[in-house]
Every structure is written in C-alpha cells, then in structure tokens.
C-alpha cells in the first residue's frame, strides 16, 4: 500500500467504530478522512472545537461563508440540526463527556495509553490547541496513525516526548492492525492479513498480548 492507500485503509477501519447518534471530533490530518466513510445507516454529528456541532463538507462557491470554518481555519459547511456556540461551551461539550469519540494522530503512544502529539522540544512547538481537552474529555479516544514513522517505532513502552495526556487512549488503529489499550497492556485484536503477528511485534516496542479472538482487519 502507498501512503494514500494506507491512510484510506486506516480511516475506513476507524469509521467502523462509529455508532448511530455519536458525536465525534476528528483531529487534523488522517483522522479528517474518517468523515468520508461514515456508514450510511448511521447518523453521526461531527463537533468542531472552534464552536459548532454539525460540521459538513467543503462548501460550494454558493455555500461559501467566511465565518463558517473548521478548527484548521478552512471553509466548511454546517449540517441541518447543527448549532454554533462559544469556545467555553465547545469545551464544555468536550470535557463533559458529550463527545462520544475523538480520533487523533500521534507522534507516540505507549503501553499505558499515554499519548504525545503536540510538541518536539527544541524543534516543533505548535501548542496543544484542543488536543489535551479532547483526549481527557472524550468518552473514547482512538489514535489513528501509520504504525511507524519512516521506520522508527511510534508505539512505545513509554513515550519519550512530552505527553498530551496520560492513560487516556483506548484504541490504536494502524495499517498493521487494531490494538486495544487495557490494564494488562496492549492487546492486538485485529491484524491486517498482509502481515504476520511477528511483523507487527517487530515494529511495536512493548510486548503485544495477542487476543485469543484475533480477527482479520477488514474494510470494504
């Protein structure tokens, strides 16, 4: 799979985690793609941390409104049933557990469910934006990312970069498999049939617990 196919594959698999009625926040980058694969029988509302629920697709020229943008500042639309609100309410929704699911990328995740995705000291310090709030507040946190970064491992025994949040990640979805974060450690619950368990383990620092019920990772 090339990079584009990998991202599509991951996004499609994450989309299977959506339930009817869910309120979902998608981080920038790969997670954004998840919106393209919402199952047709499921009504999902996307939350945008800059202040609304009901995030819709890019506007046509006619629909364009300079004051309707996503958290990346890009023009979007608002769906029927959506609502605008201020930043305090937006993070009340996020922190109060009213977001069912957040999907984010990561620089590193570890066996304890820690996640680092907001800075590389001395190199890149963009700030955490709403990521810390989302990870601490959402009912379920999914990390969606490529399994490695140019060959180096991203799923570690312990994150070395500054944490965005401690012990909050629930699920890790990569092109190699689906990993649940449990109190006992990382459990490989699905595997991409293109890879063997050994291959996944070789690119994952902590020891994986292989689920007794290990399934193939399938997307349509």
């Amino acid at each position: 799979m090339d990079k584009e196919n990998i991202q599509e594959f991951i996004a499609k698999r994450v989309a299977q985690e959506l339930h009817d009625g869910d309120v979902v926040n998608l981080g920038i980058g790969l997670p954004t793609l998840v919106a393209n694969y919402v199952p047709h029988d499921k009504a999902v509302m996307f939350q945008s941390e800059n202040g609304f629920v009901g995030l819709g697709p890019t506007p046509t020229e006619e629909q364009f409104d300079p004051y309707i943008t996503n958290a990346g500042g890009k023009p979007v639309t608002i769906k029927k049933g959506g609502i605008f609100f201020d930043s305090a309410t937006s993070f009340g929704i996020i922190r109060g557990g009213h977001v069912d699911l957040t999907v984010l990328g990561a620089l590193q995740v570890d066996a304890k469910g820690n996640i680092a995705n907001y800075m590389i000291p001395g190199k890149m310090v963009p700030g955490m934006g709403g990521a810390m709030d989302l990870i601490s507040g959402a009912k379920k946190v999914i990390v969606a990312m490529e399994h490695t970064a140019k060959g180096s491992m991203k799923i570690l025994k312990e994150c070395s970069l500054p944490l965005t949040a401690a012990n909050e990640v629930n699920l890790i979805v990569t092109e190699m498999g689906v990993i649940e974060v449990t109190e006992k450690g990382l459990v490989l619950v699905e595997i991409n049939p293109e890879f063997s368990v050994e291959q996944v383990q070789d690119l994952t620092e902590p020891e994986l617990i292989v689920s007794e019920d290990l399934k193939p990772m399938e997307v349509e």
Partner: protein
Amino acid sequence: MNKLISIEEAIDKIKDGDVLMIGGFLSVGAPLTLIDKLVEKGTKNLTLICNDSGFVDSGVGKLVVNKQFSKVIASHIGTNKETGRQMMAGETEVILTPQGTLAEQVRCACYGLGGFLTRTGVGTAVQEGKDVIEVDGVKYLLEKPLHADFALIFAQKADKYGNLVYHGAAQNFNSVMAGAATTTIVEVLEYSEEALNPDVAETPGVFVDYIVKRGA
C-alpha cells in the same frame, strides 16, 4: 452613556504594557480593524491572550510580526512561524495553554470566580507549578483566572446598549472575553440604534463598554 466611539478613540485607550484579550480563532472572528489600527499605532510591550497567534499576514499575527507583544498566552502558535521564532530566541515569553482551559480561565475573570478544577493537563507539562487537587478520587489541576486590561472582540451586530449577536463560528472566544477584562471594546459589522430582541441577543450589554464599527 454613548458606547459608540471611533476606532482611533478605541486604540488610544490602550497603553504600552497593557494586557489584551483578543477574540477570534485563526483570525476567523477576530476584530481585524482594531488589530490593524493597533499595528499602525505601534503600542509596545503588550501581553496577548488569544486562542492562537494567527498568521504572519492576518489577525493578531500582524502584531506578533510587528513585535508588539512581550508575552503571548495561547493554545496554539503553529500557524505563525514568527511566534515560534521569537519564543525560541527568547524575545517573547510564550505560555501554551489547553484551549478549554484558556476559555474557562477567561470566563472565570468575567464571572468573578477564583479558579476551577480540570482533568485536562494532569500528568503533562501543563501541570508544572500548579496545585493538584483530588476530588472523589479523581485528580484535577487548579487553574486560575486570566485578567486583562482590554478585551478586543468581534460580533456580527450590536445595539446601542452593547447587546451583541454573533454569526457562525465567529463567536468562538469573543463572547467568552466580553466582560472578562477591565474594558471591553467590540468591533461590529452592524450597529443598531434599535434594541435587539431580548430573547435573541447573546452577550449582555453590561459586559460591553465601547462599540466600534468595522472599517470606520
């Protein structure tokens, strides 16, 4: 009590060293005319409290490029490389704050609260120097209010009493900052001598000291 003033009168109130809350999210819903006038005036040594530091060529980013801030408190500075450069070079102090914490800190100042407890940031660098308080077995950070001399905000429309309404995602930090500083100045697209419908108006005029019209 005439709240409508000119952009010049508004900007003349701001002095070197003042602390400014400025509304907007990546420049969307920012008080652009007030910012441009402040760049022109060149007021120095300011502190910025804002969601982000905008872009080098728009919003509060212009003030960053013009080196008018000695301190920036924001949740995100990644869209303006000059902010990062000034931080790395030690020219500007930058405090990165989770977005939800920033919003609540501003609200606490408006609402007269001494702080609040949040799970956001527990076990991260954000925790450093802060009190960790345990309530019912859960650890929280005690976050304190952010006070400012001026809140410069933007709204779709104001009536002469200072009541405001917003449109779209331009609301963001604007309505939270209204009333949170000693003096609140709002830039609006529309101004009305007629009172807004009291059921529909969003920000109470008691939070708004002065009104300026965009581009005026």
